């Protein structure tokens, strides 16, 4: 009896697991086929994408060759124009692109983009279909239509945390200081960095705390988060209990703004925080001779100097939080099929294979096995540690190492994948994964980030964009002025809020809410 029950249970469990990892029959196409692709190199690290080893691997397994045209990020507007004129044949697939939603939807209405309906996915990409059904928060739609699928990554260390807070440990040690835990201690530490500039390894022109005003990366939003105020990107919107809120007029931001102002007046944050462009900011935070004491960044550019630290306690009884990245999907890897594509079924089976075949998935997501990762003794995927990576680079040379890199097609990294994955980086104190597990996990904001979505009415979407520009201009100049010592925050607050309301803040919020509701996440 026991044996029968066990066998039955095993059978049920096996059946349950099947949809999670159902194999796609290979090769996907009986005859060799080539699919043309447009790809936008947003981060400037994929100009060689078409020549990467991953495509030989994909072709060998599936009989499908991808012929990729890579656009540099400076060609974004040219790509938008090509999409808007549609006077030349579209490629079969459009991957990462940055094309505005309205253009994509127009192209869909004109029959140039294929809607990835439930039926189409169930028939050709059942793994994706089942996953999106179970996880509507990952089901990205434009005006209610699923026109593309995006990379899905439920790795909390990647998706559940925006920037780490990085403190210059070398300077702390030289001055015999402890890692600050409160905003007061932070101010004292920054003051000590300033007072000892020009001594030891602290350069005379040191920036005790550096951020880039109103930017999402290396952002002053981290300080707002110390006071428990979540915001993301320079729209200053967040979602609380399904309601879109505008943090730019939240009276709670007055305290963090005053704190930033105090740091500015004490000379602990530089005026360059308000004038630097992104490239200059990157140059500063990655400078070989470090001259920043404290800043926020996604990755730690130099773990031998900077250590991740917890968000500061404001001693007001409010729990500090850390800002959140997109948890459900990443907007960097898109996959859209056009009407030029004669191999829709094969294209969809390709992405299903990439999410169900662990080796294919890992090769696509991280780069080739034996160069970027390998199996551990338990047969689990194990990414190479920093040491192994350096050794591989030395062995292959930088160029070949890059050629063996990731392929940028979307995959699903969720429970099924993680059951085959050994996250060795979580044990490495120099990694973001370690920082998340050991420092940030309990601080990350539990609400939802606001995601801009179309209301379905082009006129309303345009109106929202107009309002966004006007509100952003007023907010950013006013708040930046306050932080840099112009005017009085308390005395001018009401007039500022009134002016924002006059510009149409409530109408803007209603339109944002309307768009957000179309996502169906509430």
């Amino acid at each position: 009896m026991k044996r029968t029950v066990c066998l039955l249970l095993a059978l049920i469990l096996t059946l349950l697991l099947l949809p999670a990892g159902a194999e796609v029959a290979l090769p996907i196409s009986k005859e060799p086929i080539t699919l043309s692709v447009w790809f936008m190199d947003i981060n400037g690290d994929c100009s060689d994408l078409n020549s990467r080893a991953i495509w030989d691997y994909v072709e060998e397994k599936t009989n499908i060759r991808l012929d990729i045209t890579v656009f540099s990020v400076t060609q974004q507007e040219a790509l938008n124009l090509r999409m808007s004129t549609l006077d030349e044949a579209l490629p079969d697939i459009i991957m990462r692109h940055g094309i505005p939603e309205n253009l994509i939807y127009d192209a869909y209405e004109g029959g140039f983009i294929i809607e990835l309906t439930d039926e189409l996915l169930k028939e050709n990409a059942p793994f994706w279909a089942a996953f999106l059904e179970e996880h509507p928060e990952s089901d990205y739609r434009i005006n209610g239509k699923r026109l593309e699928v995006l990379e899905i990554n439920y790795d909390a260390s990647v998706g559940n945390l925006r920037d780490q807070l990085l403190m210059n440990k070398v300077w702390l040690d030289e001055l015999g200081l402890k890692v600050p835990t409160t905003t007061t201690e932070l101010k004292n530490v920054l003051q000590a960095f300033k007072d000892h500039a020009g001594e030891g390894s602290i350069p005379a022109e040191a920036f005790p705390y550096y951020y880039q005003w109103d930017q999402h990366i290396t952002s002053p939003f981290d300080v707002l988060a110390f006071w428990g105020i979540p915001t993301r990107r320079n729209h200053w919107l967040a979602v609380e209990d399904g309601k879109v809120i505008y943090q730019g007029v939240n009276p709670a931001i007055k305290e963090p703004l005053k704190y930033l102002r105090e740091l500015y007046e004490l000379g602990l944050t530089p005026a360059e925080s308000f004038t630097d462009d992104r490239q200059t900011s990157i140059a500063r935070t990655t400078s070989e001779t470090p001259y920043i004491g404290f800043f926020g960044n996604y990755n730690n550019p130099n773990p031998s100097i900077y250590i991740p630290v917890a968000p500061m306690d404001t001693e007001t009884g409010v729990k500090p939080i850390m800002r959140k990245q997109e948890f459900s999907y990443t907007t960097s890897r898109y996959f859209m099929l056009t009407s030029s594509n004669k191999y829709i079924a094969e294209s969809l089976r390709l992405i299903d294979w990439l999410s169900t075949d662990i080796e294919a998935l890992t090769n696509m997501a991280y780069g080739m096995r034996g160069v970027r990762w390998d199996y551990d003794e338990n047969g689990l995927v194990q990414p190479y540690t920093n040491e192994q990576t350096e050794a591989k680079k030395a062995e292959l040379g930088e160029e070949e190492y890059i050629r063996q890199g990731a392929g940028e097609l979307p995959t699903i990294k969720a429970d099924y994948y993680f059951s085959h994955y050994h996250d060795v980086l979580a044990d490495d104190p120099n990694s973001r994964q370690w920082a998340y597990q050991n420092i940030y996990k309990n601080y990350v904001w539990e609400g939802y980030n606001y995601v801009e979505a179309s209301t379905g009415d082009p006129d309303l979407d345009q109106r929202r964009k107009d309002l966004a520009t006007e509100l952003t201009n007023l907010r950013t100049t006013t708040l930046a002025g306050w932080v840099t010592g112009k005017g009085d925050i308390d005395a001018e607050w009401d007039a500022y809020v009134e002016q924002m309301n006059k510009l149409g803040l409530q109408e803007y919020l209603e339109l944002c809410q309307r768009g957000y509701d179309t996502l169906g996440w509430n």
Partner: protein
Amino acid sequence: MIKNSEYRRHTAKMLRKITRNWELYLFMLPVVLLLFLFHYMPIYGVQIAFREYKSFRGIWGSQWVGLKHFQRFTNLNMFPKLMRNTILLSVYQLLAGFPLPILLALALNACAAPRFKRIVQTVTYAPHFISMVVIVGMLNLFFAPSTGIIAILLRKINLLNGNLTTLMSASSFRHLYVWSGIWSGLGWNSIVYLSALSGVDPYLHEAAIVDGATKLQRCRHIDLPCIAPTIVILLILRMGNMVDIGFQKAYLMQNSMNLDVSEVLSTYVYKQGLQNAQYSYSTAVNLFNSVINFFLLISVNAFSRKVSEMSLW
């Protein structure tokens, strides 16, 4: 009947002239082609300012919406600010930037030391060849509030205590914009005046010298009147671009501290039109610009014809 034969005679005469001087007309051909291709051909696309442009419907197939986009633009709360910023920057640029190349050309023309003249010309022409992105990069580096070379120098000579606020102040934006523009374009813009000055009859100067005229007097009474037609024509042409502020420089120089004055029509069009892909709307805003420019050109030209008898047509 008489008119017809006159017309035929006139046409034949013109054709004879063209045949006789065909080489000259051949020289003109590339320019005419260029104008036609890039300035006349696209005019038909202007209609998308009155339509809801949809890529798949094409220009002619997109829905006609009349003045909807113009109304949207003029109803913006920031419309008056955009216009004010644009016009103020333009007027400032014109007032400061227009006379200086004339003065430089007059000075160079009067310069008796050819070696010095060549050096000055090279030094003043050179910035014209630096790209706008590099120029703004230089401005950002030189004027960086705490680490810029100017801030460091001023601190060294005790003229500055704290941050240099040039990049952080809305009131400095226009000065920096205009004077950096003058720096980069001064020499280049003076070329046309130098060329006009080279056509001034040297006998006039000789006669004036004999009469005891000083250099300044010769400049005022000979050179300036001789190049006046060129100045007037260029001024009229400049008025025809009055509302056009190149977006690139203003956009690159924008930051949170100067948005109040640095948001001009062209940066707005770039953000709304190209970044958000609202082509009909941005075309409408640009057309609005062009119409203002067009009326300015016509008015100034008419005024000039009336006052000075010099005009474009």
